[in-house]
């Protein structure tokens, strides 16, 4: 048996098909991943994301430390509660992880990192904090987290929380802005997510996870597994660490140039020099969206042929339930343009695909 979250028993009781995910026993689905995907696009679904890791950073001047550690600029987080999405790079500009960083106020920040990289991330953060005075770094393994997502997610989450005894919501719950968070004594609520829908990611003490999960079920939020999580984030054009980028790819080759805080030019951060070098010499590859024109499913590592421009590779692919077509992210030579036709090697055949921008779906509708 792998590691389990505080919600494992709830998954079993809800009929989950449990699979291994990076050493964790997690729900792949509870019957139909297509049904769960549609629930998130049309109403509200929830995901156990307790395997992800909250890392609290406080101390003398954590802001200076994080300004050096992270490629996006935490100076943008002036007001308590504000968050931003960033990569954490090595000296070669390669991506160690992607994460969300929240400013909690005072001298407190919180990073939420991926499950598979949590241990290496923590190690990297601790090793690099040394030059910055008294920094306290705490891995919050005492927390559980539930992501509630969909057009009706926030209102049903608010309903659920109001029905739990002795667990008041943060003040002005429904006024929390996009990419902001607020806390009460027992709940950390962030208006963030990995589906392209509105919603909350809610963290609580591990022992409170099951009661919050049940309250959400009672408020008509559908349990959703990793299968739906992957098709939702892909439709929303959101990268998956390990597939779409890793330590040997830079943000510039991964569709994540927008996450780099280039200004002010005087701000040094780990990997900055390597990125500037790559930018100045011309980035050789880029991440694009693909739509498969034939019947079939695009999958990681399939070869993409772009005519004279050369060849590339699918980084992540799946079936889009909203579009009823297969879509993918692919790393291709930089000369490839939106609208180009290409072929993809799918199960010994060369199938026709078209290069598109991502996201593929916005507000539940096709962007194609």
């Amino acid at each position, binding site marked *: 048996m792998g590691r389990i979250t505080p919600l494992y028993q709830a998954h079993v009781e809800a009929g989950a098909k449990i699979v291994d995910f990076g050493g964790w026993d997690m729900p792949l689905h509870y019957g139909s*991943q297509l049904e769960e995907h549609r629930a998130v696009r049309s109403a509200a679904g929830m995901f156990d994301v307790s395997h992800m890791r909250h890392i609290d950073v406080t101390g003398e001047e954590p802001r200076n430390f994080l300004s050096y550690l992270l490629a996006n600029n935490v100076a943008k987080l002036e007001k308590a509660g504000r968050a931003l999405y960033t990569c954490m790079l090595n000296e070669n500009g390669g991506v160690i992880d992607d994460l969300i960083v929240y400013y909690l106020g005072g001298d407190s920040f919180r990073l939420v990192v991926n499950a598979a990289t949590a241990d290496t991330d923590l190690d990297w953060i601790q090793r690099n904090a040394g030059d910055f005075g008294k920094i306290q770094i705490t891995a919050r393994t005492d927390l559980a987290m539930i992501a509630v997502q969909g057009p009706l997610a926030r209102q049903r989450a608010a309903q659920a929380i109001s029905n739990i005894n002795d667990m008041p919501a943060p003040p002005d719950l429904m006024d929390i802005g996009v990419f902001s968070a607020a806390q009460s004594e027992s709940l950390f609520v962030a208006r963030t997510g990995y589906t392209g829908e509105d919603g909350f990611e809610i963290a609580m003490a591990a022992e409170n996870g099951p009661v919050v999960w049940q309250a959400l079920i009672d408020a008509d939020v559908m349990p959703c597994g990793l299968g739906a999580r992957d098709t939702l984030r892909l439709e929303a054009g959101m990268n998956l660490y390990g597939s779409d980028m890793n330590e040997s790819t830079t943000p510039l080759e991964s569709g994540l140039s927008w996450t780099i805080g280039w200004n002010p030019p005087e701000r040094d951060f780990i990997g900055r020099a390597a990125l500037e070098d790559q930018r100045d010499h011309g980035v050789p590859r880029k991440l694009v969206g693909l739509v498969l024109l034939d*019947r079939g499913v695009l999958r990681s590592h399939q070869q993409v042929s772009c005519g004279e421009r050369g060849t590339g590779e699918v980084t992540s692919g799946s079936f889009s339930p909203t579009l009823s077509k297969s879509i993918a992210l692919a790393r291709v030579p930089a000369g490839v343009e939106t609208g180009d036709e290409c072929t993809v090697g799918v199960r010994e055949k060369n199938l026709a695909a078209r290069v598109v921008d991502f996201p593929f779906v916005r507000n539940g509708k096709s962007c194609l």
Partner: protein
Amino acid sequence: MSEIPSELRYTKSHEWIRTMDDGNLEVGITQHAQEMLGDMVFVELPEVGSTLGGGEDCAVVESVKAASDIYAPIAGEIVEVNDLLRDAPETVNNDPYGDGWLFRMRPVDEGELDELLDAEGYTGVVAADS
């Protein structure tokens, strides 16, 4: 319907076979197979009229998770395919032994059916798989 209907024959690759009144064979995938594969999104069926050897791959069921080849259980000729599955591949998940049938074939030699697994034999295959 039971998970492994007793009146059907089976293969180790999780196909079921029903002998129809006219002597033709109806072929699909089992409850266990559809459960392993997950939600179907595409089904590729053989051409009506094509002749196949026993064990020859002739169809593909593709779920979000993976594509899986389907094999002709014994030698024969395809006489009909389930066109419903083109637009409703999820029928394979919802009714694997009924409306989710994949194709029908005229066998070259019905005797070859005896070499296939019965329900008890297939139960063993599923148990070994779990």
